């Protein structure tokens, strides 16, 4: 079970792809219905990069994270055509034991609620040291020292004493630091943070974000940061994926997304950031709720709430296309794009792309 820590390959260039998610589908089969929580999303994470995933509750963000970690249990299933490749290793279809090696040592996860993600009946030191033991084979006094180092690296004062304290003796922010320290105890290369600041108040939020950025620099971590808070995304991420109803609605470099949002959904999200329009009495919102997708999409899932919808939106499922033709990176799954084409031509382009991907899937 023990595994010597691998040093991060020094030769890895900054542009190297660490994690590639392709056509990820996660479906929950229950007696009543089939919920297609994640519907064919594709994105990648590069060395040392922070990728933000943003969206409303129920848009499939957390399921995406759990799918990558292999934590989706029955009745949930990952589709057969899905591929999750981490450092060239295919993760889908791995056995629980193979996955255990990836979890923690390759990819670690920080969960939303620090109050409940620590076991209440064991000391903080115990829980950090068990991680060290499993992944790095460190025991005894060496484990104590390593755990103290970890707690100090997440700026917990008086770490030696706090090692023997129980989770309930820590405040919320301190607990989240402990959870992060525990994730770091695995010496991961990729850290998935599932709404790590949502349960914390704003000042603590800022501290945790700062801590994550420091750790990223020190350890050359890649981070997937999941949140519904556009402000947090703007602060921390290099690349943003906007998710809606299990699909990626728009993706691009953080600056592009915030300055030139393409998808009407992203626009709506940006407009609903509090304080964006100080003169208005009420906060702008997007009317309606995220639908629970139960079938494969044949239309644009956002069309019932979209201010810019037109007839084709109900009939054609948009494919992710470059926002401005010829300029890579910034993509939106919306029939209004690519920008250069007329509306009819754009719709045709989407139809063609969807057919292509369908036949591709059939060929496999």
């Amino acid at each position: 079970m023990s595994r010597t820590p691998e040093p991060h390959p020094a030769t890895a260039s900054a542009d190297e792809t660490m994690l590639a998610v392709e056509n990820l589908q996660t479906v929950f089969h229950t007696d009543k219905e089939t919920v297609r929580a994640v519907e064919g999303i594709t994105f990648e994470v590069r060395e040392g990069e922070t990728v933000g995933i943003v969206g409303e509750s129920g848009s499939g963000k957390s399921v995406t994270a759990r799918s990558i970690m292999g934590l989706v249990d029955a009745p949930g299933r990952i589709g057969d055509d899905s591929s999750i490749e981490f450092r060239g290793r295919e993760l889908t279809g791995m056995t629980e034991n193979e996955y255990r090696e990836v979890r923690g040592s390759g990819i670690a996860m920080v969960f939303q609620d620090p109050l409940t993600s620590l076991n209440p009946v064991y000391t903080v030191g115990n829980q950090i040291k068990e991680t060290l033991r499993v992944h790095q084979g460190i025991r005894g006094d060496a484990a104590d020292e390593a755990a103290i180092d970890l707690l100090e690296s997440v700026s917990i004062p008086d770490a030696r004493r706090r090692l023997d304290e129980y989770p309930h003796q820590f405040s919320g922010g301190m607990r989240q630091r402990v959870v992060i320290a525990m994730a770091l105890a695995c010496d991961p290369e990729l850290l998935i943070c599932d709404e790590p600041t949502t349960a914390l108040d704003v000042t603590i939020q800022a501290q945790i974000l700062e801590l994550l950025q420091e750790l990223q620099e020190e350890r050359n971590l890649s981070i997937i940061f999941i949140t519904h808070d556009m402000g947090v995304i703007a602060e921390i991420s290099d690349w943003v994926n906007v998710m809606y109803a299990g699909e990626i609605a728009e993706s691009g470099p953080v600056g592009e997304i915030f300055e030139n949002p393409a998808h009407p959904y992203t626009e709506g999200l940006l407009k609903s950031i509090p304080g964006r329009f100080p003169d208005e009495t009420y906060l702008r919102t997007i009317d309606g709720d995220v639908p629970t997708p139960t079938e494969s999409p044949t239309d644009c899932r956002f069309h019932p709430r979209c201010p810019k919808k037109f007839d084709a939106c109900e009939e054609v499922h948009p494919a992710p296309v470059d926002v401005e033709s010829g300029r890579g990176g910034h993509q939106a799954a919306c029939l209004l794009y690519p920008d250069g084409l007329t509306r009819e031509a754009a719709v045709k382009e989407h139809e063609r792309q969807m057919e292509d991907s369908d036949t591709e899937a059939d060929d496999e």
Partner: protein
Amino acid sequence: MAKWNYFLRRLLLSIPVLILGTTVAFLIIRAGPIDPAAAILGPSGDPTEYEQLRESLGLNDPLWDQYLDYMWNLFTFNLGQSWVISPGDGAYELIASYAPRTLWLGFWSILIPLFIGIPLGFYAGLNPNTLSDYFASFGGIVWRAMPNFWLAIILVSVLSQSEKLFGFEWATFLVETNIVTPPPLGFLGDPLSLITAPGETWPVVLGATKQILPAALVLGSASMGNEMRIGRTAVLETVNSKYVETARAKGMSRRNIVWKHIFRNAMIPLVPVITGEAFLLIGGSVLVEVVFGINGIGYLFFQSAIQGDLPLVSSLLFVFILTLVVLNIIQDLLYTVLDPRVGFEDQ
């Protein structure tokens, strides 16, 4: 340490509970229709003799005096003598001769649910909605639903006809025993004989165990069902908790997660169930003792109550109350050991 403060406070709180409990017991006994003088003399008693007896037993003293006497005697552990059941014998001797059988019965009827009910419940909780879970859960409900008095009688009649029904004779199985008699418990008084004379003593232990098992199974049946159901729920709740997901995300093995992270947390809600039932077994064993012919303390209590043996009834009640308080203290101790959060809120 906050938790030990908490425990000390619970320890001190048990004193008023003890006093209140014995007081209520006194009121119930004295205010009830029990007339010990009539019970001693029998129906043909002479009225003057009856009055004399009442006077000499102190029954004509003011109730207040009787109460103080009673409390003082109990709390100095001066339990007095039996008046009716076995006149002249001390309550201590009677308890000492009856209690081992009940303790032996109670011991097994706590042990059986503990080692069958809880593992079954945990197994069902770890494999929810599988065939074995349904089987265990349904079995738990059925087992729990069968009343003691009915189950006891059925078991006695099935065991005494086991040869006709199943083709093997329970009475001669392993060691020869009776189905309905008190088990031989001489070895409890001389535990060293288990080592010094193993050849003679162990068969007796085996016989005593075999004889008590059907009764223990009946007495423990409800607890077994309870512990199974609650164990299942507790495990299910823990399995779906965030810290178990965190442990999985850290790459812990399933064995580590089950035995370290789930087991201890799932035990916490089971503690009051186990200790609560431990007392029920002692108080509720009268029926089972009668059916299986085990002359235990439950049987003694029942007899002394209907025969108006006042000192024996109150002594036994005192012993029961004391047992309850001690069990509660054990429960608090277990909580304090299992759950580090105990006593934290009061800080």
